[in-house]
């Protein structure tokens, strides 16, 4: 049980390559924080700095209000689950889980109690004598988690723990992790590039891009009020439609290649009028046949109950997610020209054209 704080944390690699550009954040006791971002955004570096596997260039990391910058990983009271599990190949499951306790000189009886309890939770009791290579991927993953649990650390660190599993197992393990967190409520830091994992697991998430936290907030905040075009296009599948438009003083808009968008000026806030702006619309908040813009259908992806309609007007691409039209007469096919517009129930998103930062609609 512990809090975790970052105070203007930076990391620079040799040769002046700055990978973390100053992060400030307070993590409350028991919170589950997911760090999400594309590869190379610094998310793993951030976690490895918390673990003590990477040195801190500037700023401070505090665990339970104690600066841990210079502590060895073993002294920080953290436990980490690695992407490739990193189990000791020559030790049995029991020994793998017990190793950290053995080094900390716990009594044999205490080790046995703790490992047995963790094995019970993770359904590993029958496998304690096996070697890692005799286990399946999912079982190895559970052993890696067991090794973290038995230590009862202040902070759990998960470094993309599910990315080596197949899709089905990944969903199952995701649920296991949620359940485990409910049960133990240990402060956790979880790195992933998968936005679905981030949305489902996080109490709060950090969306990272190029070493900068673009947004820190609950999954719904991030989804409903993305702080930048990067966040808007990273969270949500398919990603949010972003279209650059010129808004006139009276609220009418035109795309950059001169196609006018028929969106009622009442939904266009004052703050965006008279400037070049990026308008953001979620694919599921667009409707076919709504008031908006005439676009040509380029492709239709049918996912069963839903379909994704990819359309284009001028040089702008749009994706609409809607229920599959069963009826032959209203089916959409490639080459059709259809009207696409916002459904009017969900607000539009506005972003500055040059910085990509969110503009609040006032």
């Amino acid at each position, binding site marked *: 049980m512990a809090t975790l704080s970052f105070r203007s944390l930076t990391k620079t690699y040799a040769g002046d390559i700055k990978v973390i550009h100053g992060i400030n954040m307070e993590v409350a006791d028991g919170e589950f924080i997911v760090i999400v971002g594309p590869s190379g955004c610094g998310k793993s570096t951030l976690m490895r700095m918390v673990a003590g596997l990477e040195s801190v260039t500037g700023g401070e990391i505090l665990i339970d209000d104690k600066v841990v910058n210079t502590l060895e990983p073993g002294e920080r009271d953290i*436990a*980490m689950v690695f*992407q490739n599990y*990193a189990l000791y190949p020559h030790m049995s499951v029991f020994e793998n889980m017990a*190793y950290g306790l053995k*080094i900390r000189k716990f009594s044999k009886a205490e080790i046995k109690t703790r490992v047995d309890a963790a094995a019970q939770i993770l359904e590993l009791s029958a496998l304690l004598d096996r070697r890692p290579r005799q286990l399946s991927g999912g079982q190895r993953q559970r052993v890696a988690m067991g090794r973290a649990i038995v230590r009862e650390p202040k902070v759990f660190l998960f470094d993309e723990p599910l990315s080596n599993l197949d899709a089905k197992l990944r969903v199952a393990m995701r649920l296991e992790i949620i359940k485990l967190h409910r049960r133990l409520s240990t402060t956790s830091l979880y790195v992933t590039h998968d936005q679905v994992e981030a949305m489902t697991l996080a109490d709060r998430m950090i969306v990272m891009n190029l070493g900068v936290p673009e947004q820190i907030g609950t999954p719904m905040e991030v989804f409903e009020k993305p702080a930048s075009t990067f966040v808007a296009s990273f969270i949500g599948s398919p990603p949010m439609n972003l279209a650059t438009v010129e808004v006139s003083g009276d609220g009418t808009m035109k795309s950059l290649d001169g196609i006018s968008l028929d969106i009622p000026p009442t939904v266009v806030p004052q703050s965006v009028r008279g400037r070049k702006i990026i308008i953001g619309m979620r694919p599921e908040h667009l409707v076919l046949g709504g008031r908006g813009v005439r676009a040509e259908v380029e492709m239709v992806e049918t996912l069963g109950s839903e379909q994704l309609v990819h359309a284009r007007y001028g040089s702008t691409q749009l994706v609409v997610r809607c229920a599959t039209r069963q009826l032959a007469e209203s089916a959409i096919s490639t080459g059709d020209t259809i009207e696409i517009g916002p459904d009017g129930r969900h607000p539009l998103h506005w972003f500055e054209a040059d910085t990509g930062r969110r503009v609040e609609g006032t």
Partner: protein
Amino acid sequence: MVERRPWLDFFAHAILILGIVIVAFPLYVTFVASTQTAQEVASAPMSLIPGSHFIDNYTRVLFGGTEGAGAAPPVFRMMTVSLIMALAIAIGKIVISMLSAFAVVYFRFPFRMFFFWMIFVTLMLPVEVRIAPTYKVVADLGMLNSYAGLTLPLIASATATFLFRQFFLTVPDELVEAARIDGAGALRFFRDVLLPLSKTSIAALFVIQFIYGWNQYLWPLLVTTQEDMYPVVIGIKRMISGGDSVTEWNLTMATAMLAMLPPALVVILMQKWFVKGLVDTEK
């Protein structure tokens, strides 16, 4: 290649048998000679049927020693010297090279790569090239006619260091990190993780280095002047006297047979071990 052609089978077997005969015949002659009397061996042609002096000859060389021009101490004593030397060289090489490889791979210290290359460069210098200065050093340190003098100069091994380094590089970084998070210090990691993972490499190296140590001839020839420090390889040479004196070939052959035994045993016993290691790769 799973063809079944009778003449091809026959041909393959014939070649293999021929190969075995070529390798095994001298060994057989050695054995036969070691069971006969000196006169029987000296008569031409020598009988190829084992003689009746097996126990006689072997007890004599093992515990009696030989007299005359080719005087040598009892083989038992020489075998003991050889065994201690071979074991010290093999174990010493493994310990030293594992530790230096561990340092080079897992620690960041100034001139790390410089030291690695220094070790590597010594690979290019064969023992014969540096034997005179090495002798001088060992002599000045007063280590002639001692086990230290016999083994220490042969213990440093660039080859083994290099092999261990290559092996350590294949150990995933995450394993090191997991151990650090589990709270294991450097030596703890070495003992609990690296050492068990290196078992098979150690076994393989032990076999190679034991035979290397056992077969040393030139170096012991230089640093030993007392009979009781002769390894068995030198003993055999001493028994073959040149000039006019008579060589007791039956005893020489018995000594040769005995000298072959320990390396053969090590190979046969350890082979099982590292074949098992190769089958269940734990990585």
